């Protein structure tokens, strides 16, 4: 499948937007991990802004960045959201409440617990009635999401906004599911290269385990391993470098996505 990346949104510890992060990922600026900074979700009406939980804010922030950079028509733009397990903070709060004798659950926490919460908030924030898909594939969530978004694009020949996000899990869940970092990335995918095109991808799914996945920078590599959405970092680094490269990303069932990355001007 051939797709083009017209815009990228990114948010992670020490990674504040694509312009700043591209320099780090290309190796021209140093990576300095810093506490996550997620701007307030100003796309949302005030009531929803108050209710939006951290992972939703993270997903919305990267989606917004990609949207603003690309100028895509949001009303008709389908979305794909992928995450290993949705909002761990909300999950913990609900589980903790249910372990108490009174079991007095908060209605807002309950509706925030659904895996498609970012899709719902995104639709409210943008007024978009376009179809949306929310999926999970554990450690392979990024690969499965990219495959889903790309297949939508190939089937419809229309742009798709793809968002991968994971919020760090609180205790005791982090001991059983060590998602140690909050990270999100949005790719505005298009069937033809737009004016702002960043790279062309040729994506195939083949049997095997990735051999070229690790990042050279130890701290970026720690981030890559710390959140399933951050398995995207080697791909993003290739885009940032503007190289032609072949990137393998782990999928499920002993398969991987083999992604040929090329800069747009060479006609990827």
């Amino acid at each position, binding site marked *: 499948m051939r797709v083009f990346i017209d815009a990228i949104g990114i948010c992670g510890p020490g990674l504040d937007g694509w312009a700043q992060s591209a320099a780090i990922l290309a190796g021209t600026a140093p990576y300095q991990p810093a506490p996550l900074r997620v701007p307030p979700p100003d796309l949302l009406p005030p009531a929803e802004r108050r209710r939006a939980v951290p992972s939703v804010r993270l997903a919305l922030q990267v989606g917004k960045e990609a949207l603003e950079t690309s100028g895509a028509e949001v009303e008709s733009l389908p979305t794909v959201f992928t995450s290993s397990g949705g909002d761990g903070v909300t999950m913990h709060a609900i589980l903790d409440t249910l372990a108490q004798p009174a079991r007095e*659950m908060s209605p807002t926490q309950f509706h925030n617990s659904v895996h498609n919460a970012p*899709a719902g908030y995104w639709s409210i924030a943008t007024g978009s*009635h376009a179809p949306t898909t*929310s*999926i999970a594939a554990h450690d392979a969530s990024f690969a499965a999401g990219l495959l889903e978004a790309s297949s939508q694009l190939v*089937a419809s020949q229309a742009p798709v906004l793809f968002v991968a996000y994971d919020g760090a899990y609180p205790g005791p869940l982090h001991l059983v599911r060590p998602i140690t970092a909050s990270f999100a990335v949005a790719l505005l995918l298009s069937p033809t290269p737009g004016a702002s095109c960043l790279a062309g991808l040729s994506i195939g799914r083949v049997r095997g385990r990735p051999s070229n996945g690790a990042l050279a920078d130890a701290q970026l590599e720690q981030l890559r391993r710390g959140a399933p959405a951050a398995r995207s970092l080697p791909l993003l680094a290739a885009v940032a470098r503007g190289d032609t490269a072949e990137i393998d990303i782990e999928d499920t069932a002993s398969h991987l996505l083999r992604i040929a990355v090329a800069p747009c001007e060479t006609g990827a």
Partner: protein
Amino acid sequence: MNPLEITATAIATCLGRGEAPTLEALRSGASGLAPCSFETVKLPTYVGEVAGAGEKLLPPGFDAFDCRNNRVAELALASDSFLDKVAQARARYGADRIGIFAGTSTSGILETEIAYRNRDAATGALPQDFIYDQRHSTFSLGAYLQQRLGLEGPAMVLSAACATTAKAFAAAHRMIEAGLCDAAVVGGADSLCLTTLYGFNALCLTSRLPCRPFDAARDGISLGEGAGFALLERPASSDPMLLLGLGESSDAHHMSSPHPDGLGARLAMERALASAGLSPSDLAYLNLHGTATPVGDRAEDKAVTSLFGDRLACSSTKGQTGHVLGAAGIVEAIMTMLSLRHGVLPGTANLTNLDPELGATYVRAPARASFKRAMSNSFGFGGNNCSLIFGLG
């Protein structure tokens, strides 16, 4: 869109396991709802439990996956020779050419709810034998299906609340169209847990009585649990059951309340008709989302009447199965296909006094009727909507 053929199905709900008891209930209108005595739950409500889901029943070698959600899924998988038919498809296409598009909303959270009561008093740690990845992780069911069915194609678990397993058909269709697989197992499972029982109670959306869709006195849902699966392939039989159309939309309105005029619902139904190349008069039956909440049923009625007037026979089967949440899409898709194949127009259990403010035509008692095309609606939290159209070839 290019239609797909449904070549095998599997189902488990409170009505029973497999096609036979499900069809019998569609013909009789019987309900599987009973007063809630689930786990330690103390709520005045009715539920639809799957018989046997409390027992260890996964095949040998699958202990790590043992949770109520995967048990409910297994009870469905083992029905109606579904496993054999998937094995035959695997032999025909190859394991890596069959995709898995499964859905769940709460996965195996019940086991984590119980583990949270048994945390270490000093450290707060979960019990030593607690397993997250294969039981509670949202992809748990996907991994179970991969191993249980021996499939290696593209796999994902969709989770879009109560529209989940309807949307699984859409994902499978796209992936087959894009050439990434030749066939797909779609469906999923949702099972009773404290999160949804207490969560819907907190939203004041559960009824104290068996739910009464579209009744003037309706006052909320009854939760159920269930699982269903379907094998999708490109049409090849002489008398196929076909997926003819599908439509998805977003409400852009509220996280847990539908658009008051059913805007997103109407869009999903319109897009399904457009994708099938059909007009409203081409359909003979609509299996409604119809959960029996005052607001939800009214919104769906507005959407239906704005598109179909009062010409279309409509019913909700949730008074029989309860609201099986993420599994509603596949369970009601299978019920719709059974209705088409066996000439039965499903009724709306517990509908006694129709709400006079509603305008669609509601089937109360099941009836015999022969028809060729029908739609099934599924709408979820987050304003995610999906409508599917099935037909006899």
